[in-house]
Each structure stands twice: as structure tokens, then as C-alpha cells.
């Protein structure tokens, strides 16, 4: 792990390349976190990967989370790893929900968008598809952004916090009369 001063140096290095990219740094549970602007996420990832003394060349995980009452509502997390020094750094890109601003439904207001990092890290392919499937976060420039776990024609993003648990009707023989035309 980079320690707290090391994290500040990293944040400074990123800011030198592109202003107003790093919003916040935090160091909790022995883990360094960079909270970044979603517009600059590719710059941050490229900088961390290609700067020789950093060398965070391995992307361990990409995942999203929904912090519903909070704004910005969504975040995409990148877990980067430097295998030479065995150091991990956590990059968190905060995303506004366009639907929250004017109270429209997501179909009218559009979905939160962020640049895809599949060009930098091919491993992000499936994991970005998963985040898109479950949270409705659009990854711009992803080669094949389809649903990965839910059926293709599914409506909604099941892991959003406002999506109810158990909304799906389950068909058994005793209730097939109540579900008309279930065979279609």
C-alpha cells in the first residue's frame, strides 16, 4: 500500500497532468483511495499504469456501487495492483445520476456514463458489462456492452438500491392460473 504521504504525491502527480481530476484522497483500513472525477478516470488509470515509478499494471477488479441517499449516487471502483511492490490502490469515480436532478425516470433523463477502460485493461470487459447490467452505468467505448447475467430483454437494473427484492413472479403449478399466458 502507498502510505498517506505517498498517496498525496500520487494525487499531486495526477493533478499536474490534468487539473481538477482528484477530488479527494483518503486512507482508511490501511488502504489508499483516490476519489476522482469521472471525466478524468482514464487519465488517472493511464497515469498510474504508465508512470515508471508507479507501475500499477494489473487491474484486479472493477465494480460499481449505489449509495442511494447520497449524491453523487453511483461510484465505479477500480482496484489496481502493482505486482512488483505488492501495493494496491483503490480508485473511486463518483457518478451523478442524471435522473435525480429533475426527478425524471431513467428512460427520459438518460443513464450515468463513464469512459470504458477496456483499451487500457482488457480484463475490464466482463466486469464493466456486469456493472452496466446491474446498475445501468453506461461505459462509453466498450466493445460489446450487453447484459451479462440478466436476460437480454430484461427491464431495470436489479442491484440499484431502489429496486425491490422479490419482485419477480415465480411460476409453480398452483399459481399458473393466476399468471395468464405464462407459456408465452
Amino acid at each position, binding site marked *: 500500500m502507498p502510505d498517506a504521504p505517498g498517496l498525496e504525491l500520487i494525487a499531486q502527480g495526477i493533478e499536474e497532468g490534468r487539473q481538477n481530476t482528484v477530488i479527494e484522497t483518503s486512507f*482508511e*483500513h*490501511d*488502504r489508499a483511495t483516490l476519489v476522482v472525477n469521472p471525466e478524468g478516470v482514464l487519465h488517472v488509470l493511464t497515469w498510474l499504469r504508465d508512470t515508471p515509478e508507479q507501475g500499477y*499494471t*494489473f*487491474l*484486479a*477488479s472493477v*465494480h460499481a*456501487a*449505489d*449509495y442511494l441517499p447520497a449524491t453523487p449516487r453511483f461510484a465505479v*471502483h477500480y*482496484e489496481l495492483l502493482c*505486482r512488483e511492490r*505488492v501495493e*494496491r490502490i*483503490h480508485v473511486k469515480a463518483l457518478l451523478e445520476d442524471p435522473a435525480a436532478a429533475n426527478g425524471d425516470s431513467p428512460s427520459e433523463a438518460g443513464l450515468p456514463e463513464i469512459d470504458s477502460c477496456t483499451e487500457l*485493461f*482488457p*480484463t*475490464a*470487459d*466482463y*466486469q464493466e458489462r*456486469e456493472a452496466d447490467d*446491474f446498475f445501468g452505468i453506461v461505459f462509453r467505448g466498450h466493445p460489446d456492452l450487453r*447484459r*451479462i*447475467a*440478466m*436476460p437480454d430483454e430484461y427491464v431495470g437494473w*436489479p*442491484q440499484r*438500491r431502489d*429496486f425491490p*427484492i422479490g419482485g419477480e413472479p415465480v411460476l409453480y403449478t398452483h399459481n399458473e392460473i393466476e399468471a395468464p399466458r405464462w407459456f408465452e
Partner: protein
Amino acid sequence: MADETFRDEAEVTERGIDPFTEDPAARLAEQIAEQAERELEGPGLEPEQEVLTINMGPHHPATHGVLRLIVTLQGEQVIDLVPVMGYLHTGIEKSCEDKSYWKVIPFVERMDYLSYFFQMEAYCGCIERLVGLEIPPRAKYLRILHMELDRIMSHLVWLGTTALDIGAISMLWYCFRERDRILDLFEMSSGQRMHTRYFQVGGVFEDIPAGFEQKVRAFCEEMPVRIDQYEALLDRNEIFLHRTRDVGVVSRERMLELGVTGPLLRAAGEPWDLRKAEPYLAYGDFDFKIPIGTVGDGYDRYRVRLQEMRESVRIIEQCLDGLPEGPWIADDRKYVLPPRDELSTSMEALIHHFKLVTEGYRVPPGELYYPIESPRGELGCFVVADGSSKPARVHFRDPSFVNLQSLRDMSVGGLIADLIQNLGMLDPIIGGVDR
């Protein structure tokens, strides 16, 4: 009325399905013209050159679960491959958000149903770090003991089923015989053969019973002999060697780009193992080696896993030798259930017990990603806590899910029979892929 009849008749003639109005001579002329056109084009493609797209799965026995592969073939050669997942998606991550922290443990165990101890460790370890709970040394050793037994068990299932895919049926029976002995051990320590819920936040649920150590020692003595026997069965098997050698080779650099971890990466020559790299629990106390391959083909993957089983046996033996005395669960009443005998004498213990069972403990706000080395690679658990007694998000970075991306690189250009071999050597557990 007359109008309607007329329209019906007109439609029939337009579509040309009325045999009475069709001109037979015109049809014959059409056929001759088609024939001439075909002759002009020259002979058609040979069957080997035709491109054929087939669906393999979801219910194909060689896909180890319900994985669907859309394979494009030219003759017997695979020219493209698209895995389709989600047939086993059960929404475990979503369900976890509705359970208090201690009730999540049985859920996450059922994701990757062969490495349940690892799922528990990833989750419990993540919560322990979030609340700042130090677990006692005996609990660390007991966790490692069970996780290494689980690693052997998982590799045995892999060896049996993959050898079965390649045509060595007897391997399945031998491997499942040893696997059953491990399940017996799990039953002895926790009461369950699979999905044991043995790990708790703060340590383990119960101390190992009397006689457990002797049984594990007997197993450790026998297991290396058994591994030698498996090797003797497969290593000089002409069919097995031809099916695995130089098949499905992916370079080390490409594996790293694709985020592949675990035995697949080690078979490609990269000595990366989180047990050595960032020793969690008490892995720093043990003497073990990381086996690596040289070529990165199916045969290397097989050798690496067999050697890993031997190393796991060594870890288990050292674990029993150095097993510290003392409590097996942390003594923090805010997170850990009080001992049963205190409930009848201590009011405090009763209150704590009641609070822990009804509401559960609260975890201070925070988020953490905690990775460990599962039999398939880096298994990470990401938990977001919002200060309540239920997690706001539980996410697992499952190694099978990420490793599956390398199947295309392994298989394109090879034969369809090698695709089966590659998938077997990849060892994806679809429960973990779909979650």
C-alpha cells in the same frame, strides 16, 4: 359479402400458393434457370470449409454447469467463441443487502460451491477489517487448515471431472473417493459436509473435536501417495498427453492483461500467489512453495494443480504441528456471541446474545476490498457498510468469472475437442461466474 370473397381469391393468387392458377411450364423454366445459375457458380464449398455456428450448452456435460458457448466452426476448427453467462444467476449479491451481517455468510458460501471456506474467509475477513477486530491465533490456524483442505477438495473435483472430459473415467471415482474423506473431516469439525458456515466474524464457530487431528494426520499421510497414483495414471497416458500438451497456450503477458490469476497464471510462468505476496491470516508462518509452469499449456495447468495439492498437504501438516492453544474466537461481545454457559448466569451475556441474534451488530460506515487466494485465483470481497446492521453492498470478484475471458484466446484456432480440454483446464465454477 361479394367483395370479401373477391379479395380472398386475389390474395391467394398473389402469394402463388394456389396450384390451379400456377403455370407448370413457368415453374419448370425457373428450375432450369436455377440449375444453370448453380453450375455457373462452380462447385459448392466442401464441408470442411463451411462456417457453422453452433450452440454448446447451456446443458452440455462438458461445460461443468450451465455455461453456453456460441462457437463458430470451420470444419472442426474453432474460429470464434462467445461465452454466454447468467443461466445460474440467483441474485446472491442483491439478497445479501437484505440480511444482517452474520446472516450473509451462508449466502456467500453458495456462490462458488466448491470453495466455500474461501468465500467465508473473504467475507469474514473483510468485515473484521472494517470493524477492526483482531482474531486469535488459533482461529487463524484453524481457518488455514480448513481452507487448505478445501483447496485439495476443489482440485480433486477439478481433476476428476477434467480427466473425465478427456476420457479417463476412472479418475473421477478415485478423486471423489479422496474428496469424500475431506468432506468427512468437514462434517466432523462443523457438522456439515458442504457449506459448513464454520467461519464466523471474529474466528471460527467451534473448536475442532477430539480425534480430528489424528484423522487429518492420517489423511495427510495418505494423500501424497494418492497424488502419486493419480500422476502415475495420467502422466504416462498417451491419450492424456496428446490431448493436453501444447494445447491452449496463452502467453504470460496476455494472461496478465486479461486479469487471469491462480493456477492458470502460474502455469504460464508467473509466480504470483497472494498467500506469499501479501500473507493474510498466518500464511507467513508456513514453509511452502509456489509451483509454476513453463509453457502454459493444458499439461502445465494440470501439473501446477497437482503440485499445489502436495503443497497444501504440507501446509496442513505444519498447521497441526504448530496449532496454538487458546480461544478460537475473539472475545468481543459486541460482535461475537457469548459462550452458551454464560447465558444462564450473566445478564450482560443474555443481553448481548439477544441483541446479536435479533438485530445483529452494526458496522461503522466504510468500504473495503479484501482479496485472498482461492483455488481458482484472486477472490476479492468488496463490502460497503453504511452504519446499519445490513451491508449496503456485497460484491465478489470471482476468479472464475474473470478467468473465463481467456477461454477465447486459448481456443480460437484450435480444434473443438481442444475447446473441451481448455474449458476443463480453466476450471470455471458457474455458480461463481453467475452468482
